[in-house]
């Protein structure tokens, strides 16, 4: 039982990373990207191929996974982000499918539908972090989540973050204030892709194998649900969303009802979450983070 909860928490961490990236794209810039699964897959396969075929150390594959995912993010982002947001959704949806298609068919590199097995475990300072000893891995994953959280939170509070929010609220007004909207959007998209690549890399060394079947559209939908459920534009909320969605998705196994509840049930539930949240609580459970520095100062001074 404890082991199972640890497993849920590890997956929560891996997905929280992707959700943090999705939040930057969807919550801050207001763009609908549907391909976290694609970048996740690229990161996973980068680590798997480099460490199994070429014998690289995990820590060397990690930056490659991130950069590769970011590079592909740049490739799809550049043509589509110049236009209205709607096209991005379709282009990214298509991209996710293409990635899976290629992973399935490029036998030489990816070993086709069979995937790649026997990925070596991580070691830190000569200590091996075995995914079977779940505590160690849990700590490792959550260290990544905390670092990503702090970095992205910092980014969102910076000049860049304010520019991104300005673009979301009114792109034309933002452009006339001298913000290069396309450039900021592409960067946000690339950052979101990179962190999904890192999440993929971690998942590869956790499961110790990769298969194309893992990286379905469902993964992207789950990540989207995490952001929508927790609250768009709020990194804390998104991590909460990651936990809730993972909990829901493992609930049947947790209570031992996995033979009673069909697997489609949770997916229908994810769809319902999107529709219901949009109609009744579009800001999510926690809502958007309110933080305008001048306002806070004003409140403190004005209340005397």
């Amino acid at each position, binding site marked *: 039982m404890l082991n199972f909860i640890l497993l849920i928490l590890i997956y929560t961490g891996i997905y929280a990373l992707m959700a943090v990236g999705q939040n930057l794209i969807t919550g801050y810039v207001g763009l*609908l990207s549907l391909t976290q699964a694609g970048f996740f897959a690229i990161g996973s396969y980068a680590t798997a191929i480099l460490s199994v075929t070429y014998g690289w150390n995990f820590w060397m594959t990690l930056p490659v996974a991130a950069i590769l995912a970011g590079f592909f993010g740049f490739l799809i982002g550049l043509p589509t982000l110049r*236009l209205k947001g709607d096209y991005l959704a379709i282009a990214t949806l298509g991209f996710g499918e293409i990635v899976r298609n290629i992973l399935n068919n490029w036998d030489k590199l990816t070993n086709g539908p069979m995937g790649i097995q026997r990925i070596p475990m991580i070691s830190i300072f000569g200590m091996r972090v075995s995914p079977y000893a779940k505590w160690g891995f849990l700590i490792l994953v959550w260290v990544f989540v905390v670092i990503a959280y702090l970095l992205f939170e910092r980014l969102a509070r910076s000049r860049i973050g304010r520019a991104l929010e300005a673009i979301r609220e009114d792109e034309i007004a933002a452009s006339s204030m001298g913000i290069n909207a396309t450039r900021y959007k592409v960067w946000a998209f690339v950052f979101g892709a990179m962190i999904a690549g890192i999440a993929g890399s971690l998942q590869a060394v956790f499961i110790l194998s990769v298969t194309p079947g893992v990286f379905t559209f469902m993964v992207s939908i789950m990540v989207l649900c995490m952001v929508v459920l927790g609250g768009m534009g709020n990194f804390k909320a998104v991590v909460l969303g990651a936990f809730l969605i993972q909990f829901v998705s493992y609930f049947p196994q947790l209570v031992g009802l996995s033979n009673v509840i069909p697997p489609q049930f949770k*997916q229908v539930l994810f*769809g319902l979450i999107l529709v219901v949240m949009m109609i009744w609580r579009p800001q999510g459970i926690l809502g958007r983070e309110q933080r305008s520095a001048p306002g806070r100062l004003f409140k403190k001074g004005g209340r005397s």
Partner: protein
Amino acid sequence: MGSSAEFFQHLMNGLTLGGIYALIALGYTMVYGILKFINFAHGDILMVGSYIGLFIFDAIRGQSLGPWTIIAFFIAMLGGMIFSAGLGMAIERIAYKPLRKATRLAPLLSAIGVSFILSNMAAWMWGTKSRKLEYPFDNSPLYIGEVSITPHQILILIVVIVMMISLKLFVDRSRIGKAMRATSLDQDTAKLMGIKADRIIAITFAIGSALAATAGFLIALEIKVYPSMGTMTGLKAFVAAVVGGIGNISGAMVGGILLGLLETFGVALLGIPYGLRDTIAFVALIIILLVKPEGLLGKVEKEKV
């Protein structure tokens, strides 16, 4: 086989495939024209319509092939169309209408939710195994010179042409069609002129969904019926709508046929591996977005402050 015969063969295959894309693209483009919104659930409405058509056809067709099976086929198709039309209207009413005044992102997210609900409900209720829809006629190919053409292709061409002409006439000539165009041009002014915009939107969804169901039922003969059949087909039809110029009805027809030809000739002449056939559509999308983002027949829209 001579090279010109080969050419006509691919042309034939491309045209039928393109006709299907065009039928589906019409639904995307009509909805986009009025609401400026991509109906992500369109492909899944197609899937549900195909299932309903399949159930009706299996229930009423007899054992042997004959004139009755062809009539039964059309009755089943009509059943699927009516069901899909109702479904499309219901989805619009429940999941999109409350969000008309919300941010752009809200209806998109809601539509993705609907799409996910439909495809998984179908998998839940009807199973993930694909089901075969029997041909209502003997589908052995006929030969015109060296070019072979199957009765299935002839059926597709006839249905697509009839549907397109009647849609075009409906939108251009009828009162409701005129109201649709007015609503698409300027919803608020249309309302002031006494057009019931909500009703027009519902009708648009109904027509688009019925066309998608028709297309789904026609391709089901070849690719069978399964819960995720709408996803890829829907995506490609959307690309067709963008290529033709989204929001433009003639554009969707042109874009669909162009994409069908591109896929067929891409595999046959350019030597693109069959496994990567689905990729062609997305490369076309990226290229058109780079070169002519408003599409072939679309108008350039300047965003005003």
